[in-house]
């Protein structure tokens, strides 16, 4: 799973994208929904200027910038720029287009992929990008295992890569793996020079690797800044890119600024040029006034509470459903998010292909919630918290994300007699506590542009986030993965989502979005197909 890292007040663009080939066309309809560019960012009225430095603020240094290992947003923003991938995903249409691979063939059962590489592309150290080096990369990612948390997941069932000639390779899987083509467009399967495979994971984390992208790591000062420089001679941009050749910027400087207010102040005073981590409350001052905002709704699983149903409290369906009914989602958006944000209308956010609108099931219904709890024998105690057989209706959620939405959820749930304790910790601590398995509800989101993420997370036969025995919904979910007809698949996804919400297996809260805030001197900084920041086409006015 992805573990996007964020400090207080930041807005994360989360995880990875899984897409099946069958869905790519379907994705066209919604893929561009959030991709509207800020007025200044497209630069239609101005010619791009090469040169200059762009200073971009990130919220935390997660001590690793190796594309094949990172899983947190800030690190991804850095790592994405340093590698090219076999394919790219068009941010507007969701279509998979050539990048390092000129073309490819997929076997009928989606278990074998043959890629034909373009000629002349090299790693930043001059080594040619050939079939053998791609094999080295995939083998190394599989060998890294859990350390390459995302990449190894994309390569589940990997049987090996066969090199036919210098430009042709075939990747084989033990079972159908339709998501793989889209996965080759992600940074996690971005290509590193074969020499990098010999480095230790720690050395690669420290930025010692050699990549294949338009930028390379110049320096990495822990907790302070990461400087990327343009790779001279880079000339193998993807078909999704708007220009060819080298990147415009000489350098990109990523500055680590943990304090939300300091980030806002730095942007306002011109100490940084852009950031994707401006708190909702500070955003209005950057809408105009010499700045621009560009927001993109993240597709995938919305922010939600995931019941771990092997725990006694979360095994009680009445409790789960009551919590879902007791959350006033619109109030969260109105109070602590921006007007461009959306309350969750389903398990998947509305911009995910085939996402169903289940708004009726997610309406605020405190009376219904109280009734459910009353009927289930949860009696309101002296302190206003319900209890049953001496057990308090109280649980702790451990998380590292923006605390404000959950603080409001906490306040809302108190009204129906549910005590939600919040444990706001650092990302590392959060991961560890969750590994310990000692919790009732988990809380996060996953950014993916394919509804398969629903199956991946919820199915009792996949990750089984609910930790529950198989039931009706799992059958629907598993069938959805095999369905090739978008209509049939959409039906299955909607039915499954409905069941997940009705039984309280999923308690969606709000949809994540990412907002770039930048000064007017910044142009062309935008999102790539997986909602990652893309600096390749970015340029700055000469100062």
């Amino acid at each position: 799973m992805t573990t996007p890292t964020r400090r207080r007040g930041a807005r994360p663009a989360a995880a990875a994208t899984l897409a099946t080939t069958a869905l790519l066309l379907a994705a066209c309809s919604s893929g561009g929904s959030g991709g509207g560019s800020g007025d200044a960012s497209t630069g239609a009225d101005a010619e791009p200027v090469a040169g200059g430095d762009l200073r971009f603020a990130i919220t935390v240094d997660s001590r690793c910038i190796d594309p094949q290992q990172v899983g947190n947003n800030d690190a991804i923003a850095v790592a994405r720029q340093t590698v090219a991938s076999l394919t790219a995903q068009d941010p507007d249409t969701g279509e998979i287009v050539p990048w390092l691979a000129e073309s490819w063939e997929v076997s009928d059962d989606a278990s074998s992929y043959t890629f034909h590489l373009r000629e002349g592309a090299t790693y930043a150290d001059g080594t040619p990008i050939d079939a053998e080096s791609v094999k080295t990369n995939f083998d190394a990612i599989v060998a890294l295992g859990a350390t390459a948390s995302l990449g190894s997941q994309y390569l589940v069932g990997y049987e090996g890569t066969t090199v036919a000639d210098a430009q042709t390779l075939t990747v084989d899987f033990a079972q159908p793996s339709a998501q793989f083509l889209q996965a080759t467009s992600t940074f996690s399967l971005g290509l590193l020079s074969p020499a990098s495979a010999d480095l230790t994971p720690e050395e690669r984390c420290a930025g010692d690797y050699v990549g294949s992208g338009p930028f390379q790591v110049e320096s990495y000062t822990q907790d302070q800044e990461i400087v990327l420089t343009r790779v001279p001679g880079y000339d193998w941009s993807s078909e999704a890119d708007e220009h060819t050749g080298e990147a415009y910027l000489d350098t990109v400087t990523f500055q680590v600024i943990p304090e939300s207010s300091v980030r806002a102040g730095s942007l306002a005073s011109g100490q940084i040029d852009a950031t994707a981590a401006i708190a909702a409350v500070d955003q209005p001052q950057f809408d105009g006034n010499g700045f621009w905002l560009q927001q993109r709704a993240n597709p995938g699983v919305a922010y939600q509470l995931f019941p771990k149903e092997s725990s006694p409290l979360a095994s009680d369906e009445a409790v789960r459903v009551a919590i879902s009914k007791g959350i006033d989602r619109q109030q969260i958006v109105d109070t602590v998010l921006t007007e461009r944000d959306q309350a969750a209308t389903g398990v998947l956010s509305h911009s995910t292909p085939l996402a169903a609108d289940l708004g009726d099931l997610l309406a605020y219904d405190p009376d219904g919630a109280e009734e459910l709890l009353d009927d289930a024998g949860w009696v309101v105690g002296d302190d206003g918290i319900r209890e049953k057989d001496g057990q308090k209706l109280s649980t702790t959620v451990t998380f590292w994300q923006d605390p404000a939405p959950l603080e409001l959820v906490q306040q809302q749930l108190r009204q129906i007699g549910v005590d939600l304790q919040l444990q706001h910790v650092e990302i590392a601590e959060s991961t560890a506590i969750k590994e310990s398995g000692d919790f009732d509800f988990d809380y996060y989101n996953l950014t993916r542009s394919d509804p398969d993420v629903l199956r991946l997370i919820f199915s009792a036969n996949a990750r089984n986030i609910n930790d529950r025995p198989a039931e009706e919904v799992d059958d629907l979910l598993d069938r959805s993965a095999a369905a090739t007809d978008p209509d049939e698949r959409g039906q299955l996804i909607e039915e499954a989502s409905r069941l997940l919400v009705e039984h309280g297996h999923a308690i969606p809260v709000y949809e994540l979005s990412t907002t770039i805030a930048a000064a007017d001197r910044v142009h062309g900084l935008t999102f790539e197909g997986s909602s990652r920041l893309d600096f390749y086409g970015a340029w700055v006015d000469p100062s």
Partner: protein
Amino acid sequence: MTATTTRTPDGIEIADREDARSILRHGRARGAGSAGPWAARAGRYLLRRPGLVVAGLVLLLVAAWAAAPAVFASGDPITGVPADRLLPPSAEHLFGTDHLGRDVWTRVVHGASLSLRTTALAVVVGLVVGSALGLLAGFLRGWVDDVVGRAVDVLLAVPSILLSLAIITALGTGPTKIAVAVGVGAVATFARVMRAEVLRTSTSVYVEAARASGARWWSVLGRHVLPNSAGPVLALVALEFGGAVLAVSALSFLGYGTPPPTPEWGSLISGGRDYLATAWWLTTLPGLVIVAVVLSANRVARALETTGEDQ
């Protein structure tokens, strides 16, 4: 050090209560004299020091907040009205409202209890452990004095906030642990002052006399040395209280205190720092409350100190 960390806070409290009682009893008995002139003198003394009176009132007020918060702020400190979020200070909301529409004044008043309890526990830890060490060192002298003296040197060599952070690294977070961490930082000062006082009094004529007349050492300690050393230590308690308010709020500010939504002064200010550009009242007003409390505690400490010198 080890003694500090292995003792339970309860144990410390009980020990301290007895300690404090004896200090207070003897301290007051010493200062009292006859009632009438004393009261008149006190009145004149206070009249000449309006600042001290204000300081005392501030401390009384926050103590009252801690004891009966609902009297001063009847609202709910935990649950807000989302529609009323981020309102500036007004007659209705003296300190404005926060991002969830909670009344900041209510949260400050209700937060006094936890903040002051944590602070008091920290001072108690420092007082009990430090005084005990200082007492032993000053009274027994010899190698005990050497060992304690060295320990004090070492404790002073590390800035107290770093010492506290090291202890928090080991113990984990939470108000009690913060209190212990801050208390340990105060041990050295208490030990030094106590040792100096004991050395001063135990060389005095009446202690020599008591010793010569064959009194047991603990009775000399309890009857003569301890009561006469109490004055400056009491002044130090007030001073350290101010310092502990600062230290506790700094650690809460860094996020080592209570999780939300429980109000606590340091974490209130910490929560407001994401709203610096839009809502100044979230940080400035609770901050001023802390400043007022520390200022008052320091003022009272100075008064106690000078009174001690006069005698």
